[in-house]
């Protein structure tokens, strides 16, 4: 793999950047792999990268129906944080956070992970109780966090309206300084480049039409473009399509796929330095390095695979943002879009064995997938390598919806992010 650095840029500028290597190959798939990963989004690519790099499984293919990182990786609002309430979720997201902190160097690809901090605002007494509860749990779990009062919040975000003018005045917030944002596309590309360098075949524009299952065991996939491709183990990481894929394997998942919309303003000069989220007023915002205010809120209430939602959701989101940040009223919304999020009843993911042997699913991240990308990939890779779920993944079995051991993170996911 060609090493990236400032010096490299300088060197290549003398040859007019004509000699940069391809970031990844465009291989024709082999007949058989040790592991096939269906889905070339951030999580799938991270899985492939860690499989090859950490667990020595290099005979791996990632099969992607479109282009790499083209699903929710390309459509999210890039927030990374790990201040989850329940131990199981907190440990998983903190595992991801630790990987994020060294990711650019590990991948030799600048994913622009920017630890600008994240405020989760409280507007009611119950909000503040929940914030205390979560921050205390985080602290004892080794996750950074503080409870701030309205005055401290105001100091961190001068443009936030912390006055009593607001319908629901800000009472305080939780503050995770290590939280932040990352450049979403770069995450997919960095993992893809790293996986490719370790020998993983990245097969784009190839749709998996069926899973090949013999005697209750998955043995490969059938694709439109290359026919059958065999594998010892298959991991499905197909957010926005998980239920469809599960149906191929003959089972249902406890998922509903919903539109999740987001929007950006036109780029403006730096004005918002951290991520600000409010469950109660129902909106969140950060500012990208390019200057766009990146804004989102909750999912649309109906199932939808259309990568678009209803206008009222956008309308309510903007209302929330202008309510929180009155000085943004004259800023203008440039563009909106929608992703498809697979939501679980307990707002936590499924990283799991399935009723089909050697078939594993990693799905149901709902609105919280991007921030988990490296952690999700790492624990899924460990599970695929050993054929046995990683300890951090075990609480997220799909079978928890049978025995009732749910991990209810609705409080953390009240606003999509």
């Amino acid at each position, binding site marked *: 793999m060609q090493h990236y650095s400032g010096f490299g840029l300088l060197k290549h500028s003398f040859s007019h950047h004509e000699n940069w290597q391809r*970031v990844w190959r465009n291989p024709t798939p082999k007949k058989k792999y040790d592991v096939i990963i269906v889905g070339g989004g951030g999580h799938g690519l991270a899985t492939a990268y860690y499989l090859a790099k950490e667990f020595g499984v290099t005979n791996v293919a990632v099969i992607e129906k479109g282009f790499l990182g083209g699903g929710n990786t390309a459509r999210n609002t890039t927030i990374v944080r790990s201040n989850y309430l329940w131990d199981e979720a907190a440990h998983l997201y903190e595992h991801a956070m630790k990987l994020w902190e060294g990711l650019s160097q590990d991948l030799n690809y600048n994913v622009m992970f920017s630890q600008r901090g994240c405020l989760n605002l409280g*507007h009611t007494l119950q909000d503040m*109780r929940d914030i205390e509860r979560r921050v205390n749990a985080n602290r004892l779990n080794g996750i950074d966090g503080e409870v701030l009062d309205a005055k401290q919040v105001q100091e961190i975000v001068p443009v936030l309206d912390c006055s009593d003018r*607001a319908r629901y005045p800000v009472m305080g917030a939780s503050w995770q300084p290590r939280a932040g944002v990352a450049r979403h596309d770069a995450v997919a590309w960095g993992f893809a480049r790293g996986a490719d360098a370790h020998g993983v075949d990245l097969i784009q524009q190839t749709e998996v039409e069926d899973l090949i299952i013999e005697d209750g065991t998955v043995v490969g996939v059938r694709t439109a473009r290359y026919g059958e491709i065999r594998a010892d183990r298959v991991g499905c990481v197909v957010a926005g399509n998980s239920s469809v894929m599960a149906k191929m394997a003959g089972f249902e998942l406890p998922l509903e796929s919903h539109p999740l919309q987001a929007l950006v303003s036109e780029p*403006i000069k730096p004005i918002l330095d951290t991520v600000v989220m409010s469950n109660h007023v129902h909106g969140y915002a950060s500012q990208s390095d390019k200057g766009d205010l990146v804004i989102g809120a909750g999912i649309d209430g109906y199932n939808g695979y259309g990568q678009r939602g209803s206008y009222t959701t956008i309308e309510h989101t903007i209302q929330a943002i202008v309510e929180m940040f009155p000085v943004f009223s004259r*800023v203008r919304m440039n563009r909106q879009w929608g992703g498809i999020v697979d939501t679980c009843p307990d707002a936590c993911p499924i990283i799991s064995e399935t009723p089909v042997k050697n078939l594993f699913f990693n799905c149901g991240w709902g609105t919280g997938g991007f921030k988990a990308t490296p952690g999700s990939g790492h624990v899924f890779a460990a599970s695929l390598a050993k054929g046995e779920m990683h300890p951090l993944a075990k609480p997220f079995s799909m079978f928890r919806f049978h025995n009732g051991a749910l991990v209810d993170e609705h409080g953390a996911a009240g606003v999509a992010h």
Partner: protein
Amino acid sequence: MTQKNRLQDGGRIDRSKALTFTYNGKKYTGFEGDTLASALLANGVDIIGRSFKYSRPRGIVAAGAEEPNAIMQVGATEATQIPNVRATQQSLYGGLVAGSTNGWPSVDNDMMGLVGKVGGKMMPPGFYYKTFMYPKSMWETYESFIRKAAGLGRAPKENDPDIYDKMNQHCDVIIVGAGPAGLAAALTAARAGARVIIADEQNEFGGSLLSSTELLDGKPAAEWVADVVKELSTYDDVLMLPNSQVNGYHDHNFLTIQQHCTDQFADRAPNGQVAQRYHRVRAKWVVLATGAHERPLVYGNNDVPGCMVANAVSTYINRYGVVPGKNLVLMTSNNNAYRTALDWHDAGRNVVAIVDSRKNPQGTFVDAARERGISIMVGSGVIEAHGSKRVTGVSIAPLNDAGDAVVGPIIKMAADTVASSGGWSPVIHLSCHTGSRPVWNDDILGFVPGTTYQKQLTAGAINGSFTTEQALAEGVSAAADALTHLGMTKKDVVLPKAETIEEGKAMALFHIPHTKPTSKAPKQFVDYQNDVTASGIELACREGFESIEHVKRYTAMGFGTDQGKLGNINGMAIAAKMLNQTIPQTGTTIFRPNYTPVTFGAIAGRDCGALFDPERYTAMHAWHVERGAKFEDVGQWKRPWYYPQGNETMQQALDRECLATRKSVGILDASTLGKIDIQGKDAREFLGRVYTNAWAKLPVGKCRYGLMCGEDGMVFDDGVTSCLAENHFLMTTTSGGAARVLSWLEIYHQTEWPELEVFFTSVTDHWSTMTISGPNSRKLLEKLTDYDVSKENMAFMDWKPMTVAGVPARVFRISFTGELSFEINVQANYGMHVWKALFEHGEEFNLTPYGTETMHILRAEKGFIIAGQDTDGSVHPFDLGMSWAVSMQKPFSFIGKRGMQREDCVRENRKQLVGLKTIDPKAVLPEGAQGVLDPKAPIPMPMVGHVTSSYWSANLNRSVAMGFVKGGLDKMGERVFYPLADGRVIEAEICSPVFLDPKGERQNV
């Protein structure tokens, strides 16, 4: 300064109305009818901004929504600042203050330009992914520089003084665009009597006809436009919206329109007027007549001020009477653009040459150019513009047939303006918003709308029908189609005769080759705003970014505020060529709303501040306000939180309220409690199914507490339900949960058990509820009623109808404080009367109003839970130690029964709600504190549960708390530790949550 580029006559500006405006601190003059852009060009302003990455000087390129460069900061005061206004779409008004958004110390002499020149070589697409990684600690420093360099305009620092309106509209047909196609469609639909909305982004209707010299029926096209507008204005059912951009096209024919009401014409809206109005339109049929944007060609240094899109030059000449230069070179791949050379020539300026990439151009306009003696250089292209702050000349070279190589010697010519045209791209954006994929059309070299599920029709240039004649005809036929679908009858529409124009075949040309390879040639810009060049796109493809979405994302092409209106097709063509594919194989990008940026305030409308969410008040709210109550938001309700007196602290007020209540009598406004009236012969059966306990035997006149669970067995609400009559119950819910409980009841009744005869009515707002609580509450009540409220006649958990303070009341003897309590319910409009009457008679008992906080303390002393505070959706009644409220023997398997018996719900060591008695009685545990068994354990510490409720109890002179502890119900007397953020560790003993009067004697008197 004089308007050196202004023509003496012509155009749609009013030269009698001069307008003064300020740009970058200097005063200029324009005319009414100008845009900010046309006025700047009239004044000879060349540089209007600096580019994002390389800080290159930039000028105005286009004349409409597609303009990438002329992005201005507008606003005369701090509060009225608007970032990123497109000068080409901003009407000029007197006193307008504008400035460019980049450039230091000024746009004319930008220091960053040096950095761009020197460092630019190191900034190919995606350079930031390849660097700034080492040392890791430096990233934040690098990033702060990146952030400072980025962004265009700035947000104001003060709150917006303007107001914005919304309006819901319904119509038979909405026509988007009021050019020839749109106007013809509107006329056709209007004459048939349809309800029509026609909206156009420009300040007047006419579209392309406003800037054209074309004749209709032998007269200037504008005359036909005026006639149509006049006729349309006579129809009551036609709404004409100029200055109105249809920005989003959503499912089921829902469209949004941003109408500029006053903000196009004033720094801020005149008093009482709205700045913008947002129309939310539901249309039966949609006719998209959105026209087309001309594509510039991509050539070396094509961003030097003076390089423009051909049609924009014509627009400035014909519509605004501005010729933005003296010596023009026109480069084209098609006939249409010849009009620009004709316009320039006819305005009395010099056309240096027409450079046509085709070998043998023919047609009406070509002939007209030859007649005027304009030099035409065929089979050639402008490979490079010269100059830095303004074009000074061009290099022209012969091209091969494919247009991808220079095949002859370079000719240099002096010129100050280069107009270019690579053909027209239909404005398909809105058609893409609903998920429809556009289709490439080889005949017109552009994408046209694909199949759609919407009731959508298209007319004119959006279909690639570029002549006025075609546009008019398609406008009529689209409207006729809509009328047929609507069952309406089309009336005659006689179209004006357009000029017959002989068009030659256009050449598919996007990127003009240079003598040097693209990577070494002078920069050839594709997306001006994001500094995306042809070599950047080629580099992306070489590096393996082969999907057009990858190319876009890697280079940032199309991510500007213009969203790639000018550049995207050119970029795709360059990528396609690099990848040896056709453009349709390379794919297109999907346009998303908005078509052009929309003010946040306009979308939010008036729904902020007090109108963000309705505030709900009880009938006694004014009394609480007068009494100086502090309020708490509970759902939408404003509830009194506590009533401080004098200089009392909150704790002092609470202590006083708590003591007074237990000592004598206190009063709580409990009107916000949800109340659902339940009637029907199966009401009792229904209650038995939705509550966890038994209801079969509750007699008339009695009340009972119940827990409500989901199918998973987890508690989600609780409350007291009373039997009013045999088939009539009144259910109460938590204040915040009322709506949810009602829909819960409804969904089960309507979808699972429709056979049960039962009816639910929300009566929360019908009743005012005041709870008097304390040993003297009976005495107080007796002052206001003749009814016998003695223990004998009205036992605990009885309710009785009676007259209180002269009005009919339902009085419930239930208690959430553990004291003797009466909950008095009267019709809401009597609420204030009864409340005041209670106080008139309450003085002798020191009747004390208390708020939600004291209510919380009093109930916590008694160990009563609050659903939502002591529950979180993950606990079942057994976890709460409330097995007494669950009847497993009921014949019907009530909601929650099966769920609470799942494997994980019956396992050992679940978190259970217990009382927590701090070892130090003065220490009050913070709510939300997390308990551990070993406070010295290393992080991550195993946690056993959190504190849900915790207060200082003045009555007990110690703290009281409840919380969850793993297996807590079996751990009475054991210790739990709460390590706090400040380093303190509070130790508590697990106990019963009932701290006061465990036998319940106080309420049973």
